[in-house]
């Protein structure tokens, strides 16, 4: 029987019960009583700061008041009108840096209203009921291609379908959902929620799901010729290079691939993980890869980040979450070389605004090294680019007429699920306005 101490990379380090417990819901669902108590704390602020802080501008005080008065279904409608993936966002949004950070009760008592969990309570309640909450407008006869079935594409497709347009949703992978399905940490979206949510969203009607990869079997010119408008929500498929010796060794992997395997594993007992794991990076992907390695049974897990804690893009909440699972956070170190059973790091410092090595080195045991140093856009379809992303202006307009883009692949906004939803939705409104 393997254990956390088993050398090398091995599956089955923990028992089935331990795995089930480790990958259970990070924030459990509220029962109705808990929801009532939490909802009562909302002050119903004027022009509430939480609304401003939400990238999709959900009317939070209104939906909480609707929960308070015993109508969580109406609350859910308030949420979905702004954010059709409100169910996923309730689970994955870093609320501590969005709505809950802005909550006046955070200022008052250091304890915000638990907006995320209340949102989940409302959306879960409505989604558990039969049917789809919205109906389509009369068909317009306009046809739109949406490329990429991640949060941006899904939000765009839904809004367009609702407006009566006919949408074809192209996706390169065998399953829709984008990073909701392949990237988000397993303990944030349990019980196959990502797939269930897509199915529920499709209930609007008017969306045809098609398999296709832009740049391979689909071309932008072809889409432009066939459709009245095109929206690109292809995310960031590529991964940055480490530029360290030994990067091509067997134990070195992209964190996103590891997480995708994890999310798709039919049994996590079969998923191998190293005894000693080192994750290179400082974002949400790094934290998720590290925490989930630990939850799979790795003995030691270290996040090695090249700058200081404050620069880390993972929120303090995420950092503390990692630490609480026993993940070690190492700051101001960069990888130099990966060896057979270890990794060599060099301390860094910033001089004249540039990050440089100090010469001092440090070695860590590592059976597995995950690269989580950012994703890139690998697609090149002749659109103007900016800082490695598709340049957009206004509500996702690209340099090419009739082509919109949003989500991670486009400029502007943080790379978050909720931002992708907002951009997809707004592009849909803009496309609609330009077509009718």
């Amino acid at each position, binding site marked *: 029987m393997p254990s956390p101490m088993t050398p090398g990379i091995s599956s089955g380090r923990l028992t089935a019960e331990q795995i089930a417990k480790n990958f259970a819901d990070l924030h459990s669902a509220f029962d109705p009583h808990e929801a009532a108590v939490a909802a009562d704390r909302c*002050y119903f602020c004027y022009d509430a700061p939480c609304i401003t802080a939400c990238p999709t501008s959900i009317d939070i005080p209104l939906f909480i008041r609707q929960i308070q008065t015993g109508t969580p279904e109406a609350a859910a409608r308030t949420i979905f009108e702004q954010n059709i993936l409100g169910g996923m966002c309730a689970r994955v949004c870093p609320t501590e840096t969005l709505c809950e950070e802005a909550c006046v009760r955070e200022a*008052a008592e250091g304890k915000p209203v638990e907006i995320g969990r209340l949102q989940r309570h409302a959306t879960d309640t409505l989604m558990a009921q039969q049917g789809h909450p919205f109906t389509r407008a009369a068909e317009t006869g306009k046809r739109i291609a949406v490329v990429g079935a991640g949060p941006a594409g899904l939000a765009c497709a839904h809004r367009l379908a609702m407006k009566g347009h006919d949408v074809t949703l192209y996706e390169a992978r065998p399953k829709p959902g984008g990073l909701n399905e392949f990237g988000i940490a397993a303990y944030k979206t349990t019980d196959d929620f990502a797939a269930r949510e897509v199915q529920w969203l499709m209930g609007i009607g008017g969306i045809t799901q098609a398999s296709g990869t832009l740049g391979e079997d689909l071309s932008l010119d072809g889409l432009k010729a066939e459709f009245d408008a095109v929206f690109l929500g292809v995310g960031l498929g590529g991964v940055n290079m480490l530029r360290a010796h030994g990067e091509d060794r067997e134990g070195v992997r992209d964190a996103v691939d590891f997480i995708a395997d994890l999310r798709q594993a039919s049994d996590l007992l079969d998923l191998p993980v190293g005894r000693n794991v080192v994750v290179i990076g400082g974002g949400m992907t790094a934290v998720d890869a590290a925490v989930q390695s630990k939850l799979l049974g790795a003995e030691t897990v270290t996040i090695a980040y090249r700058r200081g804690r404050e620069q880390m893009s993972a929120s303090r909440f995420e950092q503390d979450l990692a630490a609480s699972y026993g993940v070690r956070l190492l700051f101001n170190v960069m990888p130099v070389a990966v060896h057979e059973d270890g990794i060599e790091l060099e301390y860094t410092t910033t001089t004249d605004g540039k990050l440089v090595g100090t010469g001092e080195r440090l070695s860590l045991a590592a059976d597995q090294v995950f690269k989580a140093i950012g994703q890139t856009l690998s697609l090149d379809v002749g659109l103007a680019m900016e800082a490695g992303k598709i340049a957009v202006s206004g509500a996702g307009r690209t340099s090419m007429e009739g082509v919109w883009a949003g989500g991670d692949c486009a400029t502007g906004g943080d790379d978050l699920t909720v931002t992708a939803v907002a951009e997809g939705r707004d592009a849909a409104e803009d496309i609609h306005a330009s077509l009718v």
Partner: protein
Amino acid sequence: MADLRTDFLGIKSPNPFWLASAPPTDKEYNVRRAFEAGWGGVVWKTLGEAGPPVVNVNGPRYGVVYGADRRVLGINNIELITDRPLEVNLREIKAVKRDYPDRAMIVSLMVPCEESAWKAILPLVEETGADGIELNCGCPHGMSERGMGAAVGQAPDLIEQITRWCKQTTRMPVIVKLTPNITDIRGPARAAKAGGADAVSLINTVSSITSVNLDTFSPEPSIDGKGSHGGYCGAAVKPIALNMVAEIARDPETHGLPISGIGGVTTWRDAAEFMTLGAGNVQVCTAAMTYGFKIVEEMKSGMSQWMDEKGHSSTSDFIGKAVPNVTDWQYLNLNYVAKAKIDQDACIKCGRCYAACEDTSHQAISMSPDRVFEVMDDECVACNLCVDVCPVEDCITMERMPAGAVDPRTGKVVSDEYANWTSHPNNPAAQAAE
């Protein structure tokens, strides 16, 4: 340490906290627990005449109004007077009084409006050794339809009549318990005094329907799909009770008549407020029904701490202290000018003051793009709404403008002279008098 002992009509009790006539005082078991918990006295659950006792409904008898977090703000009930045999109650009263001679034991009574009925029951009560009686002229449901309770309390001549019968028959002090379900509480209070009452107690419950079930269209509490108006009590009725107590305390005709204050007393603070408005003690029902008897500990410790802080050595030091400050609107000083002031350090930027003032008051609060809320003195009428809706205590305060300053709203210099409506130039009556 402050002395909480009180003497009400010569009835001594270790503290001014009594339990009102209601379920907490319905039987020996409860009252013994109450005395063990430290209550100063009880008014036993209302007794009716000898013979078959009244019957209660066999379904729910309470309805409720909640605040945030299901905090009970008010309860209403359709319970009647005691449904236990008279002789059982009398036996228990006697036993408890014997074991707790230092506590006040008052017996509440409600019998038909006939002299013989009152003359029959009083000797039986006297025999228990009880310290006094309270005439229940207030129960608004069930008994009132039979010509008792509030039906008596709403007819001053009947109050006077039964009070007189009692005073003629018994040596025990007579407290008349009044109903708030009347337009002017002074009428019943004057009648009680005319009949010879030693004191009045108030308020009994307020006629009410707490809610309607939107599935069945039945008022709550629902008995087989129907509901009846009940009596409302608890924190929600305190403002009504305080005003009625004050009205009696400052009425020249009843001024000085001892009062036992009832209605929404939940904390030591509520009790102290009733007493400053002239109540010699207080009676509690809903708070005990909500939280149990233990709350009396907080009431005792809170009141003595406050008394120590203020240098009141006994309750008589502050009883009635607020009565001279209760006046009629026309005598309020119109030269008192205040402005709301927002403490920016305490402000949590919820904007509730802004919504309240902008939408429903005087558009006197400005809001900047970065959510700084400030009062515009040239618009503020000092209505206090912003203070009331602000969730942070003392974040918004009312600051009096000093004499000599110019009120930017009216452009007038603030005067330190007292001037009220009776002499105001806009008052037609004042002009006519000139």
